[in-house]
């Protein structure tokens, strides 16, 4: 059998999601953002919500998310994506509204907006990419930076006596009455990616059923900020991040 016999439309098993357009993403090689973009595009396509989805893009590396996924987007001021999502969802209750935020946006400048939007039980989904560093601005210490982790602004490692302790937003969100589903996932391997996709799908469905607000945290890598090649960054994440950011469901309204 020749290669040409195999490469036929009926034998296709996987290709770039239909909703992801041809523009090359600006992310660094191996960045987790790309995988999460693919998952969101796949889930929205499978739900048939292309014409009824509104994404809120953040400030940070994910700022250009509106360029890559072919749905409606709004660009929020830094950290204010949940507030804008609240407005969109209240004005168009039939729309699937989600925000796409990094840890600098969600856990630093936007902490108040995030907690209040989740606590109000707005029927939105927040996709939270946590790579424990300010990636876009050059790898400075973020509120989510792990204890002892070295960054540009804490070159000897984060010391809780000086810099405080890492902030675990999903644990906070799981305690709020307004949240329906809080889950922490990662996208470093094929099984992890499949689980993350299921979690995103569930969150989108719960938000459309009006069950409350949903937070999906994706523990991600930042190979440029961590100064590691992509494969080693994934390994570093497995060895160091998962101790503090434990992967799994933190709250599920269906199981209560």
């Amino acid at each position, binding site marked *: *059998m020749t290669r040409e016999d*195999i*490469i036929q439309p009926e034998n296709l098993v*996987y290709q*770039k999601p239909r909703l992801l357009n041809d523009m090359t993403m600006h992310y660094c090689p191996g960045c987790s953002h790309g995988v999460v973009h*693919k998952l969101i595009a796949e889930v929205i396509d499978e739900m048939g919500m292309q014409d009824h989805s509104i994404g809120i893009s953040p400030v940070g590396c994910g700022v250009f998310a509106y360029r890559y996924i072919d749905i409606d987007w709004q660009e929020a001021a830094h950290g204010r994506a949940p507030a804008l999502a609240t407005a969109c969802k209240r004005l168009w209750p039939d729309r699937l509204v989600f925000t796409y935020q990094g840890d600098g946006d969600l856990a630093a400048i936007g902490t108040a907006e995030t907690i209040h939007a989740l606590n109000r039980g707005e029927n939105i989904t927040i996709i939270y990419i946590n790579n424990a560093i300010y990636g876009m601005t050059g790898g400075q210490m973020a509120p989510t930076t792990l204890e002892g982790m070295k960054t540009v602004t804490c070159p000897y490692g984060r010391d809780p006596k000086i810099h405080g302790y890492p902030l675990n937003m999903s644990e906070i969100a799981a305690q709020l009455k307004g949240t329906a589903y809080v889950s922490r996932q990662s996208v470093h391997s094929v099984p992890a990616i499949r689980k993350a996709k299921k979690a995103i799908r569930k969150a989108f469905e719960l938000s459309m059923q009006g069950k409350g607000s949903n937070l999906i945290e994706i523990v991600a890598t930042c190979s440029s900020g961590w100064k590691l090649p992509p494969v080693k960054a994934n390994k570093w994440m497995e060895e160091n991040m998962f101790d503090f950011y434990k992967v799994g469901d933190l709250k599920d309204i269906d199981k209560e």
Partner: protein
Amino acid sequence: MSKIKGALVIDTDRCKGCGLCIVACPTKTLALTTNEVNHKGYAFCQEVNDTCIGCASCAIVCPDGCISVYRKKVE
């Protein structure tokens, strides 16, 4: 037992050479180029062995969606 054969179509211009697909591949089908780069200056991934089984692991982990996977049963 019938054998399954796969084939990949790689968008080499979109590839940034991160190498995640190479680690994800269970049959060591992929490798980065060593003497060639794409128009952005990245070494890109390519099929080096004829061992692809069409499992799509490489395409699922690819952050840029560069890989299309085809799979067919060999009679």
